[in-house]
């Protein structure tokens, strides 16, 4: 790679040490920004989570997280994020695979990728409007099913303002995100591998079991975790869709910031800390798995 060669000659051929010692000044604005708007605000909450109202160290806030209402809101958030991540990952993968390697016409792939770029950004409040207009009580699909088949979705137990409704709505940005991230990984599956496997007498199942999946699983699992974190931190869609009837953890935190509904500022910090831990862990795993996945991509 020419750029790495350039960089090594650059490091050896640098001017005398007196100039290197001033080079760090160039990145000061960036790190000041990072401190002020990323690191310190988060640290402030993390420290506050271990303090009581008078500023003394305590574990009480973290212990207080284990009360039924807060546990329930974490649980529903984990369920919605998990369901939308797994559903989004499966459908997104099949969709990407069908468009890239499924023998469909040439135009399918660029169309799908462009649309995915748009749809993965079509989130937040407008997405909630779209699903209300489609699957709400008077939505297009709800009305169509009643008129055409006499089938009432809502009598059958479906409710858009519920766990499944929210998971279904989140998949509108989860599936395209999966498509966008998995497309390069599917491109990385070389045709020669399948041909070699077939020449050696492998069935389609054996090809997937011993060749394709071992190559793809870090991307698959990693991206699923990214989708999970993506849904876990989301609020706007859920808030516009359900108001506060579905108490996911971001909506609880929103209410806490607005009006201290937990009646304990420091408990609010602990709530935020719990969220950072969950999104942090799944993102760290994603970054680690992405490193593994890139071994197979040129």
């Amino acid at each position, binding site marked *: 790679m020419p750029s790495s060669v350039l960089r090594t000659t650059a490091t050896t051929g640098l001017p005398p040490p007196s100039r290197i010692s001033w080079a760090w000044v160039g990145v000061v604005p960036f790190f000041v920004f990072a401190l002020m*708007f990323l690191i310190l605000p988060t640290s402030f909450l993390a420290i506050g989570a271990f303090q009581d109202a008078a500023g003394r160290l305590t574990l009480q806030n973290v212990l207080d997280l284990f009360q039924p209402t807060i546990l329930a809101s974490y649980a529903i958030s984990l369920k919605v994020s998990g369901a939308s991540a797994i559903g989004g990952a499966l459908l997104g993968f099949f969709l990407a695979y069908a468009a890239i390697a499924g023998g469909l016409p040439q135009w399918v792939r660029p169309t799908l990728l462009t649309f995915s770029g748009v749809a993965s950004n079509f989130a937040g409040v407008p997405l909630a*409007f779209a699903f209300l207009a*489609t699957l709400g009580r008077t939505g297009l699909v709800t009305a169509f099913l009643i008129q055409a088949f006499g089938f009432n979705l809502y009598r059958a137990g479906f409710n858009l303002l519920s766990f499944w409704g929210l998971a279904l709505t989140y998949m509108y940005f989860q599936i395209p*995100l999966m498509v966008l991230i998995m497309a390069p990984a599917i491109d990385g599956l070389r045709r020669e591998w399948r041909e070699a496997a077939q020449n050696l007498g492998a069935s389609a199942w054996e090809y997937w079991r011993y060749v394709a999946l071992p190559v793809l699983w870090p991307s698959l699992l990693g991206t699923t975790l990214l989708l999970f974190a993506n*849904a876990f931190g989301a609020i706007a869609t859920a808030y516009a869709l359900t108001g506060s009837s579905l108490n996911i953890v971001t909506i609880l935190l929103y209410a806490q910031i607005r009006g201290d509904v937990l009646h304990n500022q420091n408990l609010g910090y602990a709530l935020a800390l719990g969220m*950072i831990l969950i999104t942090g862990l799944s993102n760290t795993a994603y970054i680690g798995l992405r490193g593994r996945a890139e071994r197979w991509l040129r």
Partner: protein
Amino acid sequence: MKRKMPGGWLVLLLGALYFLVPLLGTFEFSLRYRREGYSVEAYRIVLADPRFQATFGYSTILALCTIVVGVLLVVPTAYWIQLKLPKLRPLVEFVTLLPLVIPAIVLVFGYLRMYNSSSWIPLTGSERTTDLLLTCSYVALALPYMYRAVDTGLRAIDVRTLTEAAQSLGASWATILARVILPNVRVAVLSGAFLTFAIVIGEFTMASLLDRPAFGPYLQLIGANRAYEPSALAIITFAITWACMGLIQLSGRRAGGPPPVGAR
């Protein structure tokens, strides 16, 4: 690999249904304002609403400020890292990924506690300084996308030779950045800028908690109180997102960068 995947068309059809039906449903709903038949009344009402114009204008200006601040922050940093401090690259990349790790609502919670009116830096004290804080929080939100786009752009050009050529002609650092480096990563900067615009224009959480009259909180307000206007707004927002992504594609297919993801 001439083998056709058996369910290829079926998967594509199901995907198309899932993605197109909500758009169709929203569009159909937005036309139902009058009982007697389809009309564009909902769009007319929305576009004529002074609050729509005010909040949309506010968010547009904020998005432009975010882009300017983001470019001023990211381009010199990425350039300097590439030229002088390659060892810091992993650290800087890690920092730029932080906004994906820390949910936006947690970040803004931290800002509200750190920059409240009785703190050392009382940014939430007045409207103008809150606008500044909101701009900075959007710069933080867009940082992963802006940095990746610019970094990919910089890797594609020969930064060192360009710099040395400019230096030997007597250019200052500011001149090098503004007149040599920036024009060469124009495509990358543009794609980062359109993505930033798409993220900022409808952002709800931060604007709402910082209590600024942005487009996102307006959307939420209309959604809670009106029947047909929200659908019209959803269609308008979808068109804006589509335009931003289209402009990214137009401004350069080779710009690279991570997959575009908005703020939820």
